[in-house]
């Protein structure tokens, strides 16, 4: 008896959920799949996208790929099976994520890339931060601030991350032209504030007389600054970061950090959500790739900026 009751219950449940789905078919749903939520920058990106989707009248859900392309594949499959009408996508890997974008296209679900690129023509639009050019601009300020001469340290992000190398290459594309600027150490600190602190502490033992630090993100820059404070060198070593995080903006105001490169996660996330909205309303011709400029923030213009954006 109990067994039949359970089966009946299951059938009813299945029926109920079917009903539910057809009932909400008119309300479009947007999946927001981001590479990681373990970094405030991406949390901000995802939340902004969700907020915009809500304003535009859509349901949305955030999926965290935890920097794992395999998990990202699961999210894509689930989102497609669950009837999501569009995917706002922050890929884990430019090449690894290609199959996921293809899968969505096959299922007729448009994909709008945010911040990071994916090497596939199947994405409906790609709005990304121009990290390379941003770092060239940062490098220009770096060269000027140091007056073309000095020893510096570079802190790399995660060595397996595309952004790590885009930023590093952009920086070196200019700085390496100046023989007076000598990189005495290049180490990875995994985009992490604590690693930035520890690696910098050790580097300072080997190279006590440095003039500047270039860090691949603001978290590492703040960690490096903390190490410089502890070593009593914070006053004459210039620190350069990348991202435009809240701490870094405040530190530039306080003249603790020299400069950072501001990315615009808010602009990117909103534009991607707007693209999805336009797609639902019938638009089909999107620019395949749209780079969003990364702006240099120094003490001179820091008052124009807030965390992750312009005032």
């Amino acid at each position: 008896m109990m067994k039949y009751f359970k089966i009946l219950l299951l059938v009813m449940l299945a029926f109920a959920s079917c009903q539910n789905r057809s009932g909400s078919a008119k309300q479009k749903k947007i999946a927001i799949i981001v590479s990681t939520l373990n970094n405030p920058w991406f949390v901000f990106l995802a939340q902004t996208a969700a907020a915009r989707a809500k304003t535009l009248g859509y349901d949305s859900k955030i999926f965290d790929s935890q920097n794992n392309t395999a998990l990202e594949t699961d999210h894509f499959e689930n989102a497609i099976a669950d009837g999501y009408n569009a995917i706002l996508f922050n890929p884990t890997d430019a090449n690894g994520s290609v199959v996921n974008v293809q899968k969505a296209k096959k299922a007729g679900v448009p994909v709008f890339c945010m911040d990071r690129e994916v090497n596939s023509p199947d994405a409906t639009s790609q709005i990304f931060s121009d990290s390379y050019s941003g770092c060239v601009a940062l490098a220009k300020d770096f060269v000027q601030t140091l007056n073309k001469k000095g020893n510096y340290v570079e802190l790399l992000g995660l060595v397996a991350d595309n952004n790590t190398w885009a930023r590093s290459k952009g920086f070196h594309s200019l700085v390496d032209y100046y023989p007076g600027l000598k990189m005495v150490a290049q180490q990875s600190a995994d985009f992490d504030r604590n690693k930035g602190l520890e690696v910098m502490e050790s580097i300072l033992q080997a190279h006590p007389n440095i003039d500047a630090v270039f860090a691949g993100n603001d978290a590492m820059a703040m960690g490096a600054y903390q190490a410089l404070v502890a070593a009593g060198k914070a006053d004459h070593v210039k620190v350069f970061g990348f991202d435009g995080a809240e701490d870094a903006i405040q530190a530039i105001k306080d003249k603790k950090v020299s400069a950072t490169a501001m990315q615009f996660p808010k602009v990117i996330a909103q534009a991607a959500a707007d693209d999805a909205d336009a797609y639902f309303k019938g638009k089909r011709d999107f620019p395949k790739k749209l780079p969003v400029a990364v702006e240099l923030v120094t003490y001179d213009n820091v008052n124009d900026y807030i965390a992750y954006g312009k005032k």
Partner: protein
Amino acid sequence: MILSQYRSHLVKFQSLIALVLLCIGIGLLSDKFFTVDNGWNVMRQISVNICISVGMTLVVLTGGIDLSVGSVLAIGGAIAAGLLKFGIEIPSGNLYIGFTLLGSILGGLVIGSLLGLFNGWTITKFKVPPFVATLAMLTIARGFTMLYTKGFPISNLGDSFAYIGTGWFIGIPVPVWISAVVIVVAIVITQKTALGRYIYAIGGNEHASKLSGINISKVKIIVYGIAGMLAAVGGIIVTSRLDSAQPNAGMSYELDAIAAVVIGGTSLSGGRGTIMGTVLGALIIGVLNNGLVLLNVSPFWQQVVKGGVILLAVIIDKANSKND
């Protein structure tokens, strides 16, 4: 006879010998290694791992493992920072509770201990294997950290809080004092108390310990509670050193802690090992981290070298314990 005696001494001091050899090697390659400044530097850096891996040693001695320490570290630090900076606000009751420095630290420690005790409870009450129970806690505690911080760091915590991680007391960095206290207390517990004897007994032979009347559940719950509390101590040190509670703090720290325990000669099947061994293990990892950066070794190679050292340590340990 003399040879075997000599060998048993060698086994006892193998971690120490490895550490000394490592130091000499790095010292020969870099003249910056053997400086007082760098010595404090290494000690300060390993203080967090010492706190975690001492707790881990106690757990491993009972035959268990605690994979949740990194996440518990994160929430301990975040709670302490959050209480200090924002206090607790209950809008519905129009209530605001502020916290002093001591109160917020205590808050972090209490949360860490509670999560640890919860680990012990699920392991003993529901017979969940420690690997699974603490793996679940690894995710749960990280999730709570994200919920509490909303995914953003809590920064600018003030000078008195910064003293914990960056200050000096009688010529020695404060975090080094903290880790020294942790080590001494743990040694006293393991060597001089009934609890210590029970820990070794349970790890050696759980069934026999039960028959001899030891309350196994109680001992295990206490041990996981201590591990949780020590993880929170580590979290408070990290947070203070960075002047910021990072939601992703302590990620994969459990691996460094397990590495320290294993390099220190503690058997992963329980019952055999010492706190001092783990301290040496943590020192070896710390010196290695420091040395590889001093020598500007490529980040790719660093990972290979670190893994190789762990493997080597365990192989030597296995070979020696077979000889015993």
